[in-house]
């Protein structure tokens, strides 16, 4: 099963990628493109070992809303990064995403006893959509079930819930324990035509 984005999201991703999205924000220096594969792999390792993240959506009146979510993460053949989250039906996040796919995701995971200055930090901008394809839902559920910490999520009856998919455009990543200073990873760079 490939991680091909839904057509509407793919079109929006391409549009945003063309404008080099990192230039829109105050961000730390951009990581060299040749480090992309290595950094995406490190980020995926971090995501796989983390149970919860915070997802933020934007309502039509301009209010952001932040939600604590269980998730699964996957890396595509083109080093694209996709986050999947199950959510209860009729929630604000679902209403917001259907009107505006722009979301933000953030993680901060202090290991037991480790000081904050040694803690990895990840923040991402992504486009989110609701997935109804049964094969994709099954793939995500199997991946989530294999994730450390899933026992807690078993109580939530995720299999009955709508599935959200967030295609990452931009990531701010810092891993001080492994001497990776804060930097910006333009995940969308892989979408731009090669010069």
């Amino acid at each position: 099963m490939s991680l091909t984005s839904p057509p509407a999201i793919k079109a929006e991703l391409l549009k945003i990628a063309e404008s080099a999205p990192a230039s829109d924000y105050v961000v730390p220096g951009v990581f060299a493109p040749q480090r992309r594969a290595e950094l995406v792999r490190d980020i995926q390792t971090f995501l796989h070992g983390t149970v919860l993240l915070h997802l933020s959506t934007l309502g039509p009146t301009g209010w952001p809303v932040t939600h604590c979510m269980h998730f699964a993460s996957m890396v595509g053949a083109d080093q694209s990064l996709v986050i999947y989250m199950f959510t209860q039906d009729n929630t604000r996040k679902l209403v917001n995403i259907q009107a505006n796919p722009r979301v933000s995701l953030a993680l901060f995971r202090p290991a037991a006893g480790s000081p904050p200055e040694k803690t990895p930090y990840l923040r991402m901008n992504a486009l989110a959509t609701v997935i109804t394809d049964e094969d994709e839902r099954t793939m995500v559920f199997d991946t989530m079930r294999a994730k450390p910490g899933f026992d807690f999520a078993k109580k939530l009856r995720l299999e009955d819930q709508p599935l959200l998919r967030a295609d990452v455009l931009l990531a701010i990543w810092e891993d001080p324990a492994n001497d990776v200073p804060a930097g910006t990873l333009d995940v969308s760079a892989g979408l731009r035509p090669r010069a």
Partner: protein
Amino acid sequence: MVQPMSARISELARSGRHREHQNGVPDPYKPDAEPGVRKRVIAMLDNCRVMNLTTVAPNNWPITSCVPYVTLADAADRPVLYVFVGLNSQDAVDVRHSSKVSLAADINQEPQNFRKAQGIQAQGLAEIVDDSIQWTDAIAAVSGKRPALVETFTRATHALIRIDVLSALFYDVKVRPVWGSIDFMAA
């Protein structure tokens, strides 16, 4: 006791527009009528040192970032959070653009241990504050909680963001199982 919220923020809050984030979806948990709930929510916020703060960028994209903060309360027992950020950081740029913010703090860092789960999601209005009284109050609060950071926060390098928390959803299984919502602007 911290300064009252500014007239601009007070007007926004009292207009009822702080409930607009509900977007037609009511709070999933019943309001907790327990008399001490305000102080309990403030204590939960105070127990956590970092939160994920979501601001709205000028290009109308939500931006979530992890920030250290301190918690105080105003005369009406409404939580007031203070966050020191870089003078020209994304957070500072965003708050100058839009005062609407959202935040989440998870006190329990072991989510697989359901019996210890504690967390808060909240809406607030934010503004950059310049007055020396609030700077002094915020620095004093930081010195009690994270003394090592005090020296790093200067007006030359940092902006001080004040967040008036207007409403919150919370869960607290550790002390006593409770899920609730609270509107701090309600009488």
